[in-house]
């Protein structure tokens, strides 16, 4: 009997998650006795994900690996899943500890927080004003990263974080927020967008304002979507972890937990196939890998992959 592992994403159709699904399929093939159910709501709402979780519970899947739209709202539904014997883990965007057995961070939050401000700083030897364009105001991971970033920003003297705005992961809203930033802060030197939707919209807004080269858009994005903006100079560099690896790792972990080959508890090391293993902290969280930086030198290599 195949193990059925559900990969639940924030919303269907987002490039990042499609890539993760590819990774999950890769893991399934490697494991042999796994069937992947790739699913999610069509808009990024907690209520939508709960309906999906309910139907997965009804189908008695063996494991649910979820990237959550809401850290807290999914907890009761996921608790119910665990009560009915389903293995639940979160990945990418986490669920509160009561609602999952473990959480797989793409990278450590501290590393990401440091990385996004470092990327901005690297191209501003003399310092200057930078602003943050975040994603949906209700998304958890961006907020954690920005928090981590603020913790270390004093290590980058001269870099002045002037504002944080929210584009709600909507292309048009992010675009308008980026425009607003440029108007409000005429001396803006960089926009940090730790979201794949926001970074593209910000780069587009900068290009349209004919400020490419003047304002550097950086943060977290997908090579396929950012390739053009790296070429145009609107973005000098950006970082991301590999979503294929992330989907792959989440599937491996879910499989190992569901088949009792591993147990999620503080300090445990859970194997993730070719990605090595993840070590869990006191919160049952672990990081997959360091974020990887993309710039003009390597973008062409990755832009067709994800």
């Amino acid at each position, binding site marked *: 009997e195949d193990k059925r592992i559900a990969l639940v994403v924030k919303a*269907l159709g987002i490039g990042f998650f499609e890539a993760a699904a590819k990774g999950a399929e890769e893991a399934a093939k490697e494991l042999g006795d796994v069937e992947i*159910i790739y*699913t999610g*709501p*069509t*808009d990024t*709402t*907690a*209520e*939508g994900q*709960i*309906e*999906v979780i*309910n*139907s997965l*519970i*009804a*189908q*008695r899947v063996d494991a649910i690996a979820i990237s959550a739209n*809401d*850290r*807290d*709202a*999914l*907890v*009761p539904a996921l608790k*119910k899943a665990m009560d009915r014997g389903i293995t639940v883990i979160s990945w990418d965007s986490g669920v*509160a500890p009561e609602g999952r057995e473990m959480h797989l961070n793409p990278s450590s939050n501290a590393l990401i927080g440091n990385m996004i401000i470092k990327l901005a700083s690297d191209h501003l030897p003399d310092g200057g004003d930078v602003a943050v364009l975040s994603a949906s*105001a*209700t998304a958890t991971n961006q*907020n954690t990263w920005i928090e981590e970033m603020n913790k270390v920003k004093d290590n980058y003297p001269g870099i002045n974080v002037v504002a944080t705005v*929210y584009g709600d992961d909507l292309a048009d809203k992010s675009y308008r927020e980026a425009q607003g930033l440029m108007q409000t802060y005429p001396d803006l030197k960089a926009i940090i967008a730790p979201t794949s939707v926001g970074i593209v919209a910000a780069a587009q807004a900068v290009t349209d304002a004919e400020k490419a080269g003047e304002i550097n858009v950086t943060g977290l994005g997908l090579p396929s979507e950012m390739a053009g903006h790296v070429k145009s100079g609107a973005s000098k560099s950006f970082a991301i972890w590999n979503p294929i690896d992330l989907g792959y790792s989440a599937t491996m972990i879910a499989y190992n937990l569901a088949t009792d080959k591993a147990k999620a508890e503080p300090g445990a090391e859970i194997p993730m196939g070719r990605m090595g293993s993840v070590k869990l902290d006191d919160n049952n969280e672990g990081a997959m890998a360091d974020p990887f930086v993309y710039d003009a030198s390597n973008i062409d290599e990755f832009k067709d992959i994800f």
Partner: protein
Amino acid sequence: MSETAAGPREIPDRLSSPIQRLTGSWETLLLAVAIAVFFVNTMASPYFLDPWNLSDATFNFTEKAMIGFAMALLIISGEIDLSVASIIALASTAMGFAVQLGFDTSALVATGLLVGLVCGAFNGALVTGLGLPSIVVTIGTMSLFRGISYIVLGDQAYTGYPSSFAYFGQGYVWWVFSFELALFAALAVIFAVLLHKTNFGRAVYAIGNNPTGALFSGIRVGRVKFILFLLTGLMSGIAAICLTSRLGSTRPSIAFGWELEVVTMVVLGGINILGGSGTIPGVVLAAIVMGMVTFGFGLLNVPGIVMSIFIGALLIAVIALPRIWRRISKGTRA
């Protein structure tokens, strides 16, 4: 006063028997659809016919249906409330805020109900007091109410609801029968009696058919409509309690887009969007049909958006088919 010499001709009370009126009614049609959906689902997925799964499926519609009952009355009276989902957001935010103040469960419930009532009263006052069209008033308050939630919460969430609060959205009354399902059933009965068996319900129908005529017949049109807005606000407050309890947390985006789902459910239930006709059993059946269709599709892992095509088409079809049918039958007779 003299009786006419010839004596008045006796007019019968009714021409058709109760059975005649029942067959061919909208509710009978919906019942047939519900049974069909039930069978198709049972055939399509081995997981469908399981008491616990069916019980879980009811959560897909119970909260929306509670609002739907009040919305049905409101639409029958010729008005509409598009702010219901935003009232949920505001009521939920207020409850979350109350948690921070250390309110206990009963005080939280009171808070949710009160905010619902206040929002309903605000809508009602604008519509009946200033005589504004409800569709635009509630498009405005839809932004306003949720907007206040955003101002209060921003990107934050309220959590930490007391564990006893979880009962409303997660508790079970008996076996697979959840508290929400029981509440849904109780409210269905209450609203059915209110609409079909009381003077108030009669007034609602009269207003929906002809508000001027109703006013000239001594019905307090403004008061009835105001009460309907209050009732819709109250039901949104109750839905907010259930949903917040079920989610265990509050964000300003809670229940986003529900207003149109509720309206869809009500229209599917045979409530005339132009006012004047429709029944509560119809809404109950429509809720069950919609719940079972979504759940059935979900079991087959069909994306939600494909279900919405189905629901959208169903909505148009159920209104269009009787009209086409009437046209065809008229054509053949002529």
